[in-house]
């Protein structure tokens, strides 16, 4: 510490007009860059979020697949469900990251540099989308390696990818609200269990018709179901009906509600200090 070189000036206050200000776009960019960098450096979480989805798919295909009859080869049936499950899993990390930010002092620095809740949350959500896009691509690559085949057109692939991304963004945004609401990363982790669990009571792994009657209502009318239905339909060239629109409505609604909620909760947490 004794080697400290006393900073030489000038720190003289700049003239009013010369005070710079980052644009909202720059602030968003910087926050996204930050979250991507932090995510990339958190090696444990990175490996888990890339490896676990593949492990999940292999587990479904090889451990459960033999016992489940869906009318198609199980790896063909299950891939869309696994993609959505992984999206939920990967997006849930958003809650933990954001909670860590809120508990640390970095958030004070960011706010005192005019970075608002919107940019901070957007940074985490976009970073989550990028991370999940990569893990989804890896899952798909492994799926192809174990025999998944699709004869879908480029347009159908694009549509499926778009819906998956919409789901990822929506779940990440919900996850962000959870991260802002809870006080510890452990609690954040626990609360996002709901998001991880969402694809199970849906058509992800078994046809809804095989479920007990009381749960079918929920399974048919929850966000993961139309997303999975559309992706499966698009990739396997099956009829999709209104599923994509339902899926988009769910994702859009969740995203809007979460965005509004996160801004309110963020402001409340900051002013409570």
């Amino acid at each position: 510490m004794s080697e400290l070189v006393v900073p030489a000036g000038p720190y003289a206050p700049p003239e009013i007009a010369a005070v710079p200000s980052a644009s909202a776009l720059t602030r968003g960019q910087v926050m996204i860059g930050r979250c991507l960098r932090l995510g990339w450096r958190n090696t444990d979480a990175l490996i888990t979020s890339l490896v676990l989805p593949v492990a999940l798919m292999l587990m479904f295909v090889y451990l459960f697949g033999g016992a489940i009859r869906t009318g198609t080869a199980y790896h063909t049936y299950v891939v869309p469900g696994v993609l959505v499950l992984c999206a939920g899993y990967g997006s849930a990390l958003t809650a933990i990251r954001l909670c860590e930010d809120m508990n640390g002092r970095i958030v004070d620095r960011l706010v005192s540099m005019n970075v608002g809740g919107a940019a901070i949350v957007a940074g985490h959500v976009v970073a989550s989308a990028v991370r999940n896009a990569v893990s989804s691509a890896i899952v798909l690559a492994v799926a192809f390696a174990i025999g998944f085949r699709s004869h879908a057109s480029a347009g159908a692939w694009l549509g499926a990818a778009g819906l998956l991304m919409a789901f990822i963004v929506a779940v990440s945004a919900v996850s962000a609200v959870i991260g802002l609401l809870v006080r510890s990363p452990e609690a954040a982790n626990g609360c996002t269990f709901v998001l991880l669990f969402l694809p199970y009571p849906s058509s992800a792994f078994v046809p809804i018709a095989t479920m007990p009657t009381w749960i079918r209502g929920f399974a048919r009318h929850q966000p993961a179901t139309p997303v999975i239905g559309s992706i499966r339909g698009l990739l396997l060239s099956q009829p999709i009906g209104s599923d994509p629109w339902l899926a988009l409505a769910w994702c859009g609604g969740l995203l809007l509600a979460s965005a509004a909620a996160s801004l309110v909760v963020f402001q409340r947490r900051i002013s409570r200090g």
Partner: protein
Amino acid sequence: MSTDLAIEATGLTKAFGETAVLRGLSLAVPRGTVFCLLGPNGAGKTTTVRILATLATADGGTARVAGLDVVAARKEVRRRTSLTGQHVAVDGAQTGDENLRMAGRLAGLSRKAARQRADDLLGQFGLAAAAGRRAVTYSGGMGRRLDLAAGLVSRPEVMFLDEPTTGLDLPGRQAVWRVVSELARSGVTIFLTTQYLEEADQLADRVAVLDGGVIVADDSPGALKQKAGGRELELELAAESSFAAVLRFLGKRVVRTEPESLVIGVATDGSGPAVRGLLDEIDPDRTRVRRFAVRDVSLDAVFLALTTPSILPQEETCDV
């Protein structure tokens, strides 16, 4: 509003639930000076800083920083100020260089200018060699210096330093002090809170003591000590009974007590007649006082004389 004031607060109030933290706090800090806010834990120092730095909103009262209202011109105030808290506010997983470049970009610098600014500050703060290391690997003192540097990226007019040396060892503290003095010399207004009275004594042009949500004293360190008598007559009593008797006898003139060692501090001007008179007054039989000494009053004595002792034990108080 006077233009030569960097910070001006009038009648600030703030309550958290039922607990009133600030009850009409007013203060004024001239431009280019170092202002130090002292107060026991839980007195509302951090709350005051957060209100002035626009992170929290007061329930009542007004405040202007750098000539601007902290509520109406919140964003503009943020552009002209910076806040360094008692916890290092950088990303541990980013390198020192990345943290500073990020701050530069957020302050509106271009990529190139942000890189240049980061390099300059890393050099100035003796962190050039550690620039490429993640901040989590920095020592406490290095982390605090990086934090200060991050606060300076935007060339603030006013810097809020909330307990910037808490938890640092002496060399680390001295390094921060040098930075503060240097900044003050270059014209930056510094608003400092601290637990270390020595720090206030060394750095501050003005010291305000916050107690019970209001400013109970606001003056230069020298003048504050003068008000407390300028000097202190330290009496070591011969027995517990004498201690109690002298304490009762002197009443409000006592500025300091150490019951375990039977020591009482009394305000005095230090002159021979005054000291002799005082000794005769309290100890006519020359049995009560074992030893005495005349000392310069420390800011600690002033502080203790001005603030009411906290009822809560130290561990349970929290700095709000």
